[in-house]
């Protein structure tokens, strides 16, 4: 049981938005489509909703629980869609906005008025906006509007809920509140959900699985842990957070950076070649004296504002700048001054050579 797209290609003029994309979302899953702008994530979402249609008809397929809906228009797909800018009907009250999907049904399947009323009230309770039923969208805050848009999409009991940058237009604080609320909501009602975002933190926090898109292709798909800990490409690694690049040479079981050899079990059996080591800022240990294999570096700048301290260091051999994140205690213990020499040890080194992962 799943919502599935197969081999979808979509072009806008010369621009390829989707390049033979296939994706399967299991029933009840919450999946994030993450990628930079122009990566095709919104086009993929719109294709599932029936707001765009694949170019390669015949090959491409969109399946809702086994049923082929590729050629079925949006109005008959029963896919709930929430837009980044809410797209609420300005001339209708909150109540009527939510009731819209029920009221436009043909007479034979339209629920009676009292049932519509009961359903809308239940949804208003779910989005915690019961007192706002009579207001117009212009009288609500951004976060409230997005919740109304969500309730409106849920009212038709969609087979899949599609959210296009649902928190994109909100300020940081409301954004965080709302995404936690979305996760809770999903745990309550278990509707199969896909949501588009360009915010990696949002994707990692909320979703069951994350699909990372780049230039119309899915680069990697997996649970947030898998994606974060075992990125399939330098692009994914880079996209999911700050990263330092150390160029050097890889050889059987080790990576040589600036004359220092770091053991890297991943690289066992590799031939001697140029490679780039990816290291997260918090996977670097800074010490005054080398305790094991360590790289000498100079302190450029330090910044201890916020929950963790940030240190900018410069490699002594190549002059490359990299950043280190360390706890406040370690920072105070170390008390680095600009220009001083320190030694760095690298942990969880991920090696990529020529764009493929080792």
């Amino acid at each position, binding site marked *: 049981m799943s919502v599935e797209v197969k081999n979808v290609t979509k072009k806008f003029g010369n621009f390829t938005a989707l390049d033979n994309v296939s994706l399967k979302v299991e029933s009840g899953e919450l999946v994030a489509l993450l990628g930079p702008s122009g990566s095709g994530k919104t086009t993929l979402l719109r294709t599932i909703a029936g*707001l765009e249609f694949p170019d390669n008809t015949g090959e491409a397929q969109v399946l809702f629980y086994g049923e082929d809906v590729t050629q079925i*228009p949006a*109005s008959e797909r029963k896919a*709930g869609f929430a837009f980044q800018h809410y*797209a609420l*009907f300005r001339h209708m009250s909150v109540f009527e906005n939510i009731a819209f999907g029920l009221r*436009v049904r043909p007479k034979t399947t339209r629920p009676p008025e009292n049932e519509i009323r009961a359903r809308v009230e239940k949804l208003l309770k779910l989005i915690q906006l019961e007192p706002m039923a009579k207001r117009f969208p212009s009288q609500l805050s951004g976060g409230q509007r997005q919740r109304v*848009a969500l309730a409106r*999409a849920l009212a038709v009991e969609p087979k899949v809920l599609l959210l296009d940058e649902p928190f994109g237009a909100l300020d940081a604080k409301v954004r965080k509140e709302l995404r936690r609320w979305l996760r809770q909501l999903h745990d309550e009602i278990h509707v199969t959900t896909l949501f588009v975002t360009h915010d990696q933190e949002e994707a990692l926090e909320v979703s069951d699985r994350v699909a990372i898109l780049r230039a119309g292709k899915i680069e990697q798909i997996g649970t947030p842990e898998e994606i974060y800990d075992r990125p399939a490409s330098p692009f994914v690694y880079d996209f999911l957070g700050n990263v330092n690049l150390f160029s050097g040479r890889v050889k059987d079981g080790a990576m040589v950076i600036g004359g220092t050899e770091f053991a890297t079990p991943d690289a066992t059996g590799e031939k001697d070649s140029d490679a780039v080591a990816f290291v997260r800022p918090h996977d670097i240990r800074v010490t005054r004296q080398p305790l094991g294999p360590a790289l000498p570096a100079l302190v450029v700048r330090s910044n201890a504002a916020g929950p963790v301290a940030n240190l900018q260091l410069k490699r002594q051999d190549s002059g490359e700048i990299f950043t280190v994140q360390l706890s406040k205690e370690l920072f105070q213990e170390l008390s680095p001054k600009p220009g001083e020499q320190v030694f760095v040890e690298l942990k969880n080194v991920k090696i990529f050579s020529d764009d493929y992962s080792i």
Partner: protein
Amino acid sequence: MLPGFKLTLGFTLFYLGLIVLIPLAAVFWKTTTLTWPQFWQTITMPTAMASYRLTFGASFLAALVNVIFGLIVAWVLVRYEFFGKKIVDALVDLPFALPTAVAGITLAALYSKTGWIGQLLEPLGIKAANTQLGIFIALTFIGLPFIVRTVQPILEDLDPELEEAASSLGANRWQVFWRVVLPMLTPALLTGFALAFARALGEYGSVIFIAGNIPMKTQITPVIIMGELDMFDYGKATAIAVVMLVVSFVLLLTINVLQWWTNRYNTNNLA
């Protein structure tokens, strides 16, 4: 408060007074040269009564027809791309730009028994020249740009996501138009209607040639006013003008209230 308030407000009041209020007041003042019975007799004389019905009726119908067809024209101009769109777009303004007398003569020539269109209508038993139909045609002609030009920008700004949202909720195309698009356009349609209606009420040049100005049949109110002026009867002329003025004002006020009501969702006050 922004500097210059007193100066600009003073100027605004002076200008409005000079251009709008003083002439309007003069109409009322001139009317007072008549006694009440004279006034009443003038404004209720059969030819005047017939002309009110004709003027307001034809103007109303013409504006109404323009609401429907003007909306279609605006829709086509906004939603579709086709060859010659710029030219069609420019054509819409023609009734604005044309001197009304030119429009009047052109229409009269076209719809006369021997005119291009008149000769086609003749075998069907339809007469446009010297009939109320002709007046209606002329008023429709001059009113069209008002609807198109008020609806067009609103339609252009209408977020396509609204229609997509509606169809993803299961609405068919007719429901999308009727329940989502049309309500958003209603305030603009009302404004366009009010403008076209007001323009039609005061129309003179384009109507008189095609109308034939037969008393009780095809004589519009401005022609009656003109007739009184020709006889140097300023009092009678202004008396009928006052009727036009008051009725027009009340109608436009009603339309404004209606428009405010249909647009009430755009307010930000927490009700």
